[in-house]
């Protein structure tokens, strides 16, 4: 006869019972867009560092503006998730070093000036010519390769911080065994790079960039798959609650979505298609980058929901 463990509680707090459900699709959107913008900043920084901003068809003309729009959309999603919305400014009158969310709030504030500085490098004439003071700043920036390299480096560093933060935000919450892995930071960073490479691949006008980004994306996808395997292995070799949380992704409630939409359709199949494309066996098709972007979003969605379903006590109820 097997031992019995039955818990009956009179508590039925909204968002907490029967399973924690404090973060929904808004947070998944925020983490996805934050990660993708982080990747776009690293790609943009790399292009600037290589001096590609002078090339007419370089994506670095579009990336700063698109990044600002996407990041602002992500922050809007985050704002919508706040329960005490009109007190949001409290995040910016204090800094809590132990809180990854506090770090994130301040990193987000630093990201905007870096993106605006990058935008200045390719500011259209119609925007700078009517303002002589802006025009002189832009001209001075464009003429000095050192400034361009500094802006590029700044974008790469802040992009890496933003990308890692989106994962650390979850991994620092030890009460949820699934999130309790230091690999979530690198995993979300490389996933952000992969979705950003796919996005830039879709919008790039320069064929050289498309090939370059498809090749880079293949590398990111392989690395992402490697991190996912390490992440799952780490959980499976840990305590019982961590093993149970890994099972949520392998053969539990979230397994079909995770294995089909994240691993197969989001990583393996686009990797196969893009490998054929970069070896000139087939033409570059938008299907692969679209699948990568969708897979990146579903990864955040699954991790956010499955993480909340994993629990030190109640994990056994989900078997």
């Amino acid at each position, binding site marked *: 006869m097997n031992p019995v463990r039955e818990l009956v*509680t*009179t508590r039925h707090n909204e968002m907490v019972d029967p399973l924690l459900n404090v973060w929904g699709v808004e947070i998944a959107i925020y983490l996805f867009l934050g990660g993708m913008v982080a990747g776009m900043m690293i790609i943009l920084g790399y292009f600037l560092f290589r001096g590609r901003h002078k090339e007419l068809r370089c994506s670095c003309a579009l990336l700063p503006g698109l990044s600002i729009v996407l990041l602002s959309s992500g922050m809007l999603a985050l704002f919508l998730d706040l329960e005490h919305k009109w007190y949001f400014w409290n995040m910016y009158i204090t800094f809590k070093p*132990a809180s990854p969310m506090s770090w*994130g709030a301040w990193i987000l504030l630093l990201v905007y000036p870096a993106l605006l500085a990058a935008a200045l490098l390719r500011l259209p004439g119609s925007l700078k010519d009517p303002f002589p003071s802006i025009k002189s700043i832009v001209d001075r920036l464009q003429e000095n390769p050192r400034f361009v390299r500094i802006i590029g480096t700044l974008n790469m560093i802040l992009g890496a911080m933003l990308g890692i933060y989106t994962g650390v935000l979850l991994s620092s919450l*030890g009460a949820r065994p699934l999130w309790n892995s230091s690999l979530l930071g690198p995993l979300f960073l490389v996933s952000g790079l992969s979705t950003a490479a796919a996005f830039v691949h879709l919008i790039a006008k320069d064929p050289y960039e498309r090939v370059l980004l498809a090749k880079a994306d293949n590398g990111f996808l392989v690395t992402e798959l490697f991190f996912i395997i390490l992440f799952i292995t780490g959980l499976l070799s840990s305590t019982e609650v961590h093993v149970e949380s890994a099972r949520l992704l392998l053969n539990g409630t979230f397994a079909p979505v995770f294995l089909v939409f994240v691993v197969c359709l989001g990583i393996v199949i686009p990797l196969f298609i893009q490998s054929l494309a970069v070896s000139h066996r087939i033409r570059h098709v938008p299907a692969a980058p679209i699948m990568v972007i969708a897979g990146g979003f579903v990864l955040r969605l699954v991790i956010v929901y499955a993480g909340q379903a994993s629990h030190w006590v109640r994990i056994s109820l989900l078997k």
Partner: protein
Amino acid sequence: MARYGMVIDTKKCVGCMDCVVACKTENQVPEGFARDWIVYDTTGVYPTLVTEIRSERCNHCDNPPCVYCCPCGASHVHERGGVVLVHHEKCVGCKACMAACPYDARFVHPEGYVDKCTFCIHRVEKGMDPACVSVCPTHCMYFGDLEDANSRVRRLLDERRSHALLESAGTRPQIWYLV
């Protein structure tokens, strides 16, 4: 330095929920929410089963993850007795503290801020027991300074076998259950 804690005798608790009602009344907890609750925990091999009845709430941990993760300092440790509290006017409702709590002891108040047990600090500062302790008909709940060797809670812990909840989570909870 005082360290407030609670000791609950599971041999006396009958799960009457007077503590729950007293808390809701004292703290005007909105309908549909609870700062404390009753858990019936049954373990063993049939037919030799044992049920432990517990009155649960925020454990006012000594190593509180909810305080560390709070981005705006709303969740904090009170200067008196190490009680974990929430500044309602500082809380942005990001819910990170709710995700960080292994006991799921917090909830979002309908007004938007995160709410939880305060150990009735407003009563304790006036020398009274928390509302839940003061109404318990079986006197199974004890509140006091765990650092004081002569306090009732300390003596009970020294004399009886006890356990806390999810000690393996490493949060050093300050509510102890006598078994």
